[in-house]
Structure formats: C-alpha cells, structure tokens
C-alpha cells in the first residue's frame, strides 16, 4: 500500500496510496451524494436550460453570445470575483493565524463572531458602508466610493472573511507545529519558515477557501444590486433580470450556460490544485494552541483580532443602533413588538415565529449537508477515482450556480409525483443543504487526505480492521473539521435568502424572509422591527456556532 519513506520528509501524496474504499460500502458512500446531486441539481438545472433552448424564446441564443455586452458582463463578473477573493485571502490570513495558533481569552467567541456577516442582510451592510464612507468623507467630491466597485469589493471581503478564517484557520490549527519549530531550530528565519514550510502545507486549505470565496463572489446578488447600485451588472444579476423581470428564458439560459461553464472549469482546476497540493504531514489531533509568549506576539494577535473584529462589527453596530432607535430617542419598543403579530401588515405571524422556523430549517439543512457532504468526502478520498473526482468538483458547482437557475429548474423538473416537491416543506432545507454541502466537503476533504498514512498503517499492523481504522484514526481528526463545517452550514442556512424566497410560505417565514417583508412596506416602526429581528438572528447565530464548536471540543480525544 505504501512505500517506506524517509521519516522527516513530507512527500506529496497520491490517492493510490490509500486503502481504497471499494465494494458495497464504497458504492453506498458514493451513491447517496450522487443521487442527491442528480435529483436536486443536475436534473433541475438541465431542465431549465433545455426549456430556454426549446425555440419558444423571442431571442436567438447565438445573438446573446455575439453581443459584446454579454462578454463585458462575463469579464466584470470574473475579475471582481477574482479580486474579491485575493483581498479576502489577504484580509483573512492574519486572523486565521491568530485564532489557529494562539490561545487567548475569547478565542472561541472571535471564531463565532466572524460568522456574523453571513446572516447579515445585504441592506444593512450597504447602509453600514454608506454611513462609514460619509463619516470618512469618501462619498462625494474627489473620492466617491459609494455605489462603486470598491464598495462591492469591501462588502465581499466583509461577507467572506469568515471562510478564510475558519477553513484555513481550522487546517492551520492541526498542522504539526513541530515542523515549523524544527525549521526554526535549524536556523530558518520566520520568513523562510513561512515560505518553505507553512505556506506549502496550507495550500490545500487555501485552495478550498479561495474556491468557496470566489464562487460566492461570482454569484453574489444582493451586494451587486444594493451596494454596487444600478450601474453594476454580473452574470448572476443578469440571469435574474432576464428570467424574472423579462420572462426571457432563452437569454437567461444562455447566460446560465456561460456561468455553468466558467464555474465547472474553475472547480475542476481548483479541485486538481487542491489534490496535488496535499502534503502528508502527520496531522496532529488539535495540538493545544499556545498563549502568545513574547510582547511582540501579543501585540500582533491583539492588533489582528482588533482590526478584523472592528471591520466586521461596524455593520452589526449599525444594525443594533437602528434596532434601538425609537422615535427621536432610543428604547426597546421594536424588540417588544417582535412577540406579537400586528392584526394587519406584512407578516402573517409574530416576528419571533420566524426565528423558530429558521432554527428548525437550519437544523434540517445542516443535518442533510453533514450526511451528504461527509459521505461524499469519504468517497472522494477513499472511493473510486472517477466517482471521487466527479463528486469533488460536482458538489461545488451549485455554489457557483444562480439561485434563479436552480429555483426555476426545481419548478419545472420536480413537478410531478413521485417528485412533486415544488410546494413541499422539505424543499427549503434541501435547497439550503445544496449550499451547505460544499462547505462540509471543503473542510473535510483536505483533512482526510492529509491524515498521515503511517497512523493508519500502524493501526492496521496492530490488528485494527479497516472500519476501526476509519473510526479511530480518521473520525477524531475529521470531527473538528465536521464541527467547523456544521457551523458554516448552519449559518448559511440561517442567512440564506435566494432559494428560500422562491416559493415561500408567507405564513411560515424564515428570518431573512420576515425581515425582507417588513422592510418592503413603508413605516419606520416596521423597519425598526426588521432591524431588531436581525439583531436576534445575529445573537442566535453566534450562540449556535459557539455551541456546535463546544460540543466538538468536548469530544476531543487525548493524544
């Protein structure tokens, strides 16, 4: 299975070295994710694109591709996502190091707080940016950042920095610190250690995080329309506009194909890059992070954490301020109003009911995402090569697919028994799980790959069955990644709006839907209630992420 190799090197891994998971177990691990992908993604999206090309459209597909405006939009969509990704990596790496390698009071809270923008409505981020720009005098005169590409980039960084902090940070935390220490002892400078040891080892996680961030920015919708203003258009906003506002399914289908082609190219490339970047390095089971020792380290950690939180929490401050602003002063009236429904108005239930709906949906969505994503990860790393590659790239594609393509696809594809799911209550958690699965996989796959083969061999030599190896070696290491992924899937589900809004039951709203409905009517008091509901959602998100991580930490096995 594995050739002997020098003890201190960190050789490139190749898949074939693994004890492959074949036979019926392997088939089972692959079958469920494949079926999930086929039924809830490939079939609906295929159907809606086919519908666009059925010749009933007013527009000829070729004319869309021949239009230079289409390619301008493709170019803008791609470069703004690429630049957003680079900026997010740059902004997130210091914080990832701070929370991965340093123990300090409130570390768990910081890890949870970075998730807050995930559930923050775009409107609030937009308003926060606007307020900040005008305070700093950047909203007119010589420098105007309001409704500019800069505003989009900044908003993308705020939204996505959590991905870098948690995906890269999670991996960094289990990276064997002794490798770096040995290098230091042998006389390498900090810079050399980073370049020669740390960075190469982090590469798989960097690719994972970069892929997710890129796909999010590639398909971002609210940020482009609300923060970017009416002059900015991306493939995502154009697909929405043609499909929903113009009822022009032909143009929308062409654009959806272009989007799909770009996303598939990207995920195939990045999945290959991530796979070849893996170095087996003897993942440690969460070695204890150390308290920063030198004054310099302390200052570094404090500065990084301080700046990151300040930027992330400005929107939260705006949200809290607005939720407390009652009349000409401040008070809790908007919070009190959350417990009962106005006899008339935008909501059919007391606003707090939306919190319960959101939580139930999020639990269901997270459960589905963990099962599908967990099985898929095992199949990717240990299963047959072809199936593994298809799953590895395929399950990422939904993250880069427009909500309209998927939503409309479900409408026309899953419309007959036994799969008439259009108005089923299950469709919402399923749609959210489709977005949650990539998080689970991007957290688990790199870890599974990097588990030191020698550990498995040692266990096997000592007589452990392959199942027992998986249970005793792989699972404990992966558990941490699963917990991080569960936190993500949960937050994504709590904040998810696009897919949920497609066929919403207004009498069973989730929090984002309830906020949207409250904001959609004139009247300062409804607006205040929406903001108060946003604060409640934020608190719940932070608490849930903390709980999920604590549950995982309780499971830690000694090393």
């Amino acid at each position: 299975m594995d050739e002997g190799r020098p003890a201190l090197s960190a050789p490139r891994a190749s898949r074939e070295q693994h004890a492959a998971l074949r036979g019926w177990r392997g088939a089972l691990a692959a079958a469920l994710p494949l079926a999930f992908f086929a039924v809830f993604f490939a079939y609906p999206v295929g159907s809606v694109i086919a519908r666009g090309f059925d010749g009933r459209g007013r527009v000829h597909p070729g004319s869309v591709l021949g239009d230079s405006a289409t390619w301008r939009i493709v170019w803008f969509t791609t470069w703004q996502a690429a630049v957003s990704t680079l900026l997010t990596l740059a902004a997130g790496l210091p914080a990832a190091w701070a929370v991965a390698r340093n123990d300090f009071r409130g570390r768990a809270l910081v890890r949870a707080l970075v998730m807050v923008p995930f559930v923050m409505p775009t409107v609030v981020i937009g308003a926060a940016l606007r307020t900040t720009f005008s305070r700093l005098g950047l909203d007119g005169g010589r420098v105007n950042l309001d409704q500019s590409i800069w505003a989009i980039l900044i908003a993308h960084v705020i939204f996505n920095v959590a991905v870098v902090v948690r995906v890269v940070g999670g991996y960094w935390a289990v990276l064997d610190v002794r490798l770096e220490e040995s290098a230091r002892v042998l006389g390498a400078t900090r810079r050399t250690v980073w370049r020669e040891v740390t960075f190469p080892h982090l590469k798989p996680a960097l690719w994972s995080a970069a892929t997710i961030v890129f796909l999010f920015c590639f398909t971002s919708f609210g940020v482009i329309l609300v923060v970017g203003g009416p002059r900015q258009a991306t493939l995502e906003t154009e697909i929405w506009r043609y499909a929903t506002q113009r009822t022009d399914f032909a143009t929308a289908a062409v654009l959806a194909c272009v989007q799909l082609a770009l996303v598939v190219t990207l995920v195939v490339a990045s999945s290959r890059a991530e796979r070849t970047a893996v170095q087996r390095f003897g993942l440690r089971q969460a070695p204890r992070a150390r308290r920063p020792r030198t004054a310099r380290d302390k200052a570094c950690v404090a500065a990084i954490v301080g700046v990151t939180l300040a930027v992330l929490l400005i929107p939260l401050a705006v949200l809290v301020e607005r939720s407390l602003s009652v009349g000409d002063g401040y008070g809790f009236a908007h919070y009190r109003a959350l417990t009962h429904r106005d006899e008339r108005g935008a909501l059919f239930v007391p606003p707090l009911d939306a919190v319960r709906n959101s939580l139930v949906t999020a639990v269901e969505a997270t459960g589905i995402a963990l099962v599908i994503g967990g099985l898929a990860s095992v199949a990717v790393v240990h299963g047959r090569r072809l199936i593994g590659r298809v799953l590895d790239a395929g399950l990422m594609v939904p993250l880069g697919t427009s909500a309209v393509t998927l939503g409309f696809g479900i409408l026309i594809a899953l419309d007959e028994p036994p799969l008439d799911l259009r108005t089923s209550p299950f469709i919402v958690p399923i749609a959210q799980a489709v977005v949650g699965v990539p998080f689970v996989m991007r957290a688990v796959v790199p870890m599974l790959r990097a588990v030191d083969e020698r550990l498995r061999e040692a266990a096997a030599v000592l007589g452990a069955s392959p199942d027992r190896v998986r249970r005793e070696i792989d699972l404990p290491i992966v558990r941490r990644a699963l917990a991080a992924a569960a936190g993500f899937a949960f937050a994504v589900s709590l904040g998810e709006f696009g897919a949920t809004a497609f066929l919403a039951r207004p009498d069973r709203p989730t929090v984002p839907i309830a906020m949207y409905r409250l904001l959609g009517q004139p009247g300062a008091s409804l607006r205040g209630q929406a903001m108060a509901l946003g604060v409640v959602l934020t608190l719940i998100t932070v608490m849930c992420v903390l709980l999920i991580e604590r549950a995982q930490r309780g499971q830690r096995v000694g090393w």
Partner: protein
Amino acid sequence: MNRPSSRPRAIFFLVFVALVSMSLTACGDDADPQAAQCLSKPVATPIDANKVAATDTKGTEITLVTHDSFAVSDGVLAEFTKQTGITVKLLSSGDAGQMVSQAVLTAGNPVADVMFGIDNTLLCRGLLANLFTPYTSSALAEVPDSLELDPFHRVSPIDVGDVCLNYAKAAYATNAAPTSLDDLTTASFKDAFVTENPETSSPGLAFLLATVAKYGDPGFEAYWKKLRANGVEVASGWDQAYNESFGGGKGPRTVVTSYATSPAADLMFADPPVSAPTIGVVEDSCFRQIEFAGVLAGTKHPEAAAKLVDFLLSTAFQEDIPANMFVFPANSKASLPKEFASTVRLVDKPLTLDPTQIEAKRDDWTERWTKAVLR
C-alpha cells in the same frame, strides 16, 4: 353571466389592438408583434358560474400564489373558509415580475390554483402565455368598467393604485414643493430626486411608463437626460430609494418615486406618531396600476378557485386591502379606513398606457432608459 357592456368593449379593444399593432408595425423596430394580440380571443373554456354555485367545495384545499407584497388581516381568509369550506394555502414567489415568469414557466401545471397581483404592466405577458381560465364573477358588477382591461374576464381587477412622486413636506416648508414632472428638471430640484431602476423595480418601471405617457416616445429620453443632468439618483429597489436615500421623509433626497398612498402609510406607521402626513404627493406624476386575480389554467379545482376570486372581490376582502397593501379596492361598494379617507385618494387624471403597448415596447424602453440615464 356575460355583462352587457363587455361585447361593445371587446369590439373597441379589437379595433384598438388592430390600430396599435398597425402603428407598431409601422414603427418597424424590435417590437413584438405577438404582444398586440394579448387581448384577443382566449382559448380556454370559461368556468361556468352556475356550476361554481352548485359545487360543494367543503374540505377542498387550494393555493393562492401572490407577489411578496401581499398581506391580509387575521381572520379574513378564515371567513372564506367558513363560507365555503375551502382552506387557502398561501404561496409568495418574489415580486410580480418573478411571479408571472414562474407562472409562464409552469403554464398548464401551475403551482397554485389562483394568482393574485398580476398588474397592467405584466397583464399581456400573462395572457399571451394562456395562464388563466376565464371566469366572470357576479361581483364584477360593483367594479368600475375602467378597471376591467380584459374583455374576456380571464383576470378580474382586485385593487388599484397610483405610483407617484412623493416629497418630504419638511424640506419644502419655505420653498415651493414640486407640482409637475417638469419641475424636477429645474435648478431648485438639483440633486433632490431619487427613483428606482425600471429594470429591477416595479415602481421604477411604472414611473418610466409615466414619463413615456407624458412625453411620448422618443420624448421621454430627452426628459430623462435632463433629469440625469440635474443629478437624479437611481436605486435598485424601492426600499433603498424610499427608506435609505429619501429616509422616509428625513433623508438627503427630498423627492422619491413611491405610491399615492405613502402619506397614509406614513401616518399609520410613523415613529414617533404624527397627527398629519409628512409626505406630499405630486398628483400630475401618477401612473395608474391595476392589480388582477385569475384562476390559473390547469387547476384541479376550478370551482373552488372561482369561489376564491368571488371572495377577493367581495367587500369582506376588499375593505381589508387598503390598510394592508396600501392600494384602493376595485369594488366601489367597499369603504375605506379612516387614515385613507382623510389623507389620500386616487388622482383624477392618472397617466396610463395600454397593456399591449407596454408588453410590446417595455424592453426597448428600459434599454433606452438605461442608455440615457446610466451609461
């Protein structure tokens, strides 16, 4: 149950449609020739009103699909259930544009039985896709003829409202408030006006149509170029325009595209409460929006669906409309809540355009608007 007035009106419409289609062909650009036929003869067999009355609908469950601004008070739909034994499941699917697009996509196998909220700007799109089964409700007798745009009753008018310019009264305590569309191009309203992008917002589209109705085609382009020179701000949606830039009457922009009823909403939900509206309406700027409901073709419960249309037209539902959706009931017998009666009204001479013309030219207009204002 054909009402006596529908036949002459049908003929009038056919003549009108013919004229419009001729004029459009004359223009010869990318106008859609199909659009002109949207008000011609329907294909589906009408639902028989006598059969509806005779059908026992007890225990039926039907689905009402609406846009996401739909709202109704507690207990109103329960009243319908009490009368007919039918339970109503609500489904909302985005804004009106998205709702109609979804219905076009699923035509023949609809997600719901009745649709509420398709308006005159989208009407032809829905009719051309054969979304609805004709049904002539007896309650239409109480609805003014001017609201009934479809001579075959595939859809019934449920409510009517105006999209108008609003201004913050506080900002115009000393200098003159705007009174016309032309005012916005003058120096006193430099950097004062915020409106919505017609490509992404329904009031934004309505206001673009108002300018087309007022200045004609291509006159509207020149008007928008003047607005642009005068510093018009464009927001993606109503919320950003009204709540952020206009600040509900307290923001940096002092004129906004919103609804004729915004003063009433302001009065009902103001914080702190106010005794008189702080928002004014420019009556010469209003575009008329009529919202319709119709039985979706392909429903398995046509009779129950027809009963729901009857109910939507009844005073029980009609009197609940204003305070929930801030539009006026189509049924002339329905009375208005006091906040409405005292503060707002439908304007006497709204700007209007024919639905066939809107369907034929809308993409062309919004594209030219984008070039004139955003590029």
